[in-house]
């Protein structure tokens, strides 16, 4: 259904309502007359009219020739996304950074993960004090936490690499922890036996008060050479050779 129009509205007679509006805007003289434009709700009337006979022109995203003639929106620039990065205040010294290789660093690269030394040997740990072993144990715990975080992050991202390196590093930390347990268990059993030995030792009186436990019968010359300061340092250390 269409209604006959004023002569300058003829161009719009076959177009859509939007084009009709544009044509109305362009012709100020037409405001003098009663504006009667063709208006159609029939779908074929709204079809784009071009000289191009190819109906599927511009559909393919691979063959990007684009349309042959400019369209109504051709001179409108595409909107660009706003560059926006929220700035978040982060505490560099927060304890949760302990789960990551460094503050602000999410993951170690596989190459960095691979760069680690060997585990501690039991023999090396035998000469460490309780405090050292305690600290070392918690260092190992923190390292394993960091590796577990990295492993979870790799799995979450389905990256498909880096797990072998993490596993081998984790294995090495576990060896150290096993050695710590070995050294401490061994030390405890030795101490238990040593208490029995001390009971039968004539120089040692376990019931004696502080400073009265050990009464050396005879000084050996070499023992006197050890200065008192050095003795105090070694107080906490376990016997070594």
């Amino acid at each position, binding site marked *: 259904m269409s209604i006959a129009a004023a002569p300058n509205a003829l161009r719009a007679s076959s177009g859509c309502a939007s084009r009709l509006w544009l044509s109305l805007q362009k012709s100020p003289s037409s405001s003098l007359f009663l504006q009667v434009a063709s208006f159609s709700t029939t779908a074929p009337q709204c079809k784009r009219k071009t000289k191009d006979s190819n109906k599927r022109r511009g559909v393919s995203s691979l063959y990007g020739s684009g349309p042959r003639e400019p369209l109504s929106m051709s001179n409108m620039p595409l909107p660009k996304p706003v560059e926006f990065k929220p700035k978040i205040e982060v505490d560099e010294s927060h304890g949760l950074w302990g789960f990551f290789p460094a503050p602000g660093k999410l993951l170690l690269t596989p190459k960095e993960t691979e760069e680690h*030394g060997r585990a*501690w*040997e039991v*023999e090396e740990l035998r000469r460490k004090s309780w*405090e050292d072993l305690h600290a070392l144990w918690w260092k190992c715990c923190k390292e394993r936490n960091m590796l577990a975080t990295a492993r979870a992050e790799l799995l979450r991202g389905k990256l498909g690499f880096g797990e072998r390196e993490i596993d081998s590093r984790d294995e090495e930390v576990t060896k*150290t922890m096993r050695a710590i347990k070995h050294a401490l268990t061994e030390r405890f059993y*030795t101490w238990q036996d*040593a208490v029995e030995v001390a009971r039968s030792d004539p120089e040692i009186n376990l019931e004696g008060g502080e400073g009265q436990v050990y009464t050396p019968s005879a000084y050996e010359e070499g023992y006197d050479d050890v200065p008192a300061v050095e003795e105090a340092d070694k107080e906490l250390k376990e016997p070594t050779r």
Partner: protein
Amino acid sequence: MRPTQILSVGKYRHLKLTTKDVGRGFYKGNRTGSMGRHTKYGGYLIEWSKVRTYVVPQNLSESKLTPFVSREVRSEPGDYKGLSKGPQDPYFYVEQWKRYNGVD
């Protein structure tokens, strides 16, 4: 608390434990252990002797130890010749104690 022993051997070890596998009173562990006990009224009592306490050394951040030793450092076997139980020898322990800690 550990899971019921019969469930951690044999074919049950490889099956997921459900309530249909067990009778009343069986306990499915989740490898964490309990921190208290149930009361007969349906409540739960925390037993503080069961609650885990983690003692972290105070100066952990100052410690320079790392979980790894440089591969340049070669590990050498300890010299425990002549000791009947090697490094676990109690006489050797007492001797070392006398040497370093006995006289303060």
